[in-house]
């Protein structure tokens, strides 16, 4: 697993991340990503097929600490204008976006 993030993989990641980078930024980021991967490789000592369970929250999320489920009810936010005012481009209370080109789903 001595893998490295190549230029080609990097470009794909940038695309997935919906980012546009200049050349200087891209060079720095690729270098740092590969530096971080070196540290991450320490995890290779962990056998995923072993019976160690996974932990997604440190503190067990038990019934004792979890809020009880409650009825799903609409509570209107008092000031929707304050939310809409944050949008960079609004017309007749609609958010304005550029064209979304038609794409065929495979």
């Amino acid at each position: 697993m001595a893998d490295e993030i190549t230029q080609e993989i990097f470009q794909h990641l940038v695309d997935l991340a919906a980012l546009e980078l200049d050349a200087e930024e891209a060079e720095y980021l690729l270098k740092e990503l590969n530096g971080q991967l070196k540290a991450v490789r320490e995890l290779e000592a962990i056998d995923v097929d072993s019976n160690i369970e996974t932990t997604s929250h440190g503190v067990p999320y038990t019934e004792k600490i979890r809020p009880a489920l409650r009825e799903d009810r609409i509570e209107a936010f008092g000031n929707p204008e304050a939310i809409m005012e944050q949008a960079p481009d609004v017309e007749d209370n609609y958010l304005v976006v550029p064209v979304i080109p038609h794409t065929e789903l495979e």
Partner: protein
Amino acid sequence: MKQSLSDMPAHVLARAIRNGEYSAEEVLDAAINRIRAVEGRQPSLEQYELQPDDRDKVHAFITLTEERARKQAQKVDRKVAEGKDPGKLAGVPFSVKDIFCVQDTPSTAASRILANFSSPYTATPVQRLETAGGLNVGKVNLDEFTYGSSNESSAFQPPVGNPWDPSRVPGGSSGGSAASVAAGECALSLGTDTAGSIRQPAGFCGVVGMKPTYGRVSRYGLIAFASSLDCPGPVARDVTDAALMLEVIAGADRHDATAAVLDVPEYTAGLERGVKGKRIGLSDDYFMVKYPDPETGELVEQPIQPEIRERVLHAADRLADAGAEIVEQIPMPHTHYGIPVYFVISRVEAASNLHRYDGVKYGYRHPGQVEELAELYRKSRGEGFGLQPKLRILMGMYVSAAQYEKNYYQQALRARTLIRSDFDKIYDPEGEYRLDCLLTATTPTTAFEIGQVYGDSVLMQYADLLTVPANHAGIPGISVPAGFDSNGLPIGIQFLGHDFDEQTLLQTGRAFELATENEDWRQVKPAVLRGLS
């Protein structure tokens, strides 16, 4: 010399204001004067050029909310005059890390992408501080989106200076919080801790910082980084103030399903119960650590800074004198997984949380013409995010993308189990060690110089080496000041405890304060305060 109102602890101030000895407005005036004296120029988005006195000042506040605080102070004073209860934090000035939403104030996350965002609502812990009579003096700087350990990655420059030596970093990401409290610009600050972001800057700035148990404090209104790790918590100048603040902000919240529905103890009651009979552990795995060599960048086993180790051992001695039982050689064999696991889990969660910034609903939008929506996303995000968010998003994409996933995420989740099991074993009441808490250094080094580490994202991450295991395990931790190194820089020690047992940590921290209250180092004041009346 009479102590300035700005240097008084929150619990003393609140009591004096309730008794009518001082007015809340008077306290606020003192805070504003202190801010004027130590702040220097306000951090901004403009192209940063170093100016001569930048390295003498604190630069903690992105936004000052003096008017908001003034109204709150007048309300407190009115209540006192009318004989009504003005609240537990009556008239206490506090700052808020600018990662929390506060209604009608810019809530920037120290990022260009949110620089123009004015929140339509207020985060629960901020709301609780204000309801308790606290005076919200402003929003303080941080690493962009909390991504860093030095505050240098903020889009708002100049960077925050460490009040003990402003040419050095305050730590991070809650660096503005720790610096503003250390410099007496406010008595309390609300920070967040995802890998050490409260405790590490508290250590660097000589103040108290607590990461409560995961779920102890609501995250409603906190701009999310890594949702399985983020914890809001107090930054204060002493343990009593941290206890008082936690008492106010902790507890269930119907707006946050991860906020635990457990009762919140009155932490300030019984705070001076002492450590008699408490079992406090020391672990070599926190003294000898795998850390990148600053020259070569290779990971090598090396000891933490010797002066820091010495202060940890000194603290153990003082606590033993106070009646604690010190248990040495506690095995914490998985500590070294902390940073690698963090590189995976926090990045996956960050990438997911940052996908919402799209230039459409709020925040920065690319101002020029674009052909189509995807281009708007790419340009808005490319221009709006700084390098550190980009780095985290890309790493998150890599370690979670199906075609590249080398099991890293699955391995990280298992290593997290191992880290948690280290703590379960040492705290098990039936087990071999039966500890009440573990005593460690907060950081492997003291505060470094501005510009010394920034840019090297691996070395920077390792500043959290001793604090991040608590985040993976979810347990609470507190950093308290314990002395200085030979450069006069603060050293922090850390107590790590059981789930939801902040009480024991606060009592232990307080016992340490009492055991060392006459030591000379406690008289030293931060550099930025010298010469102030």
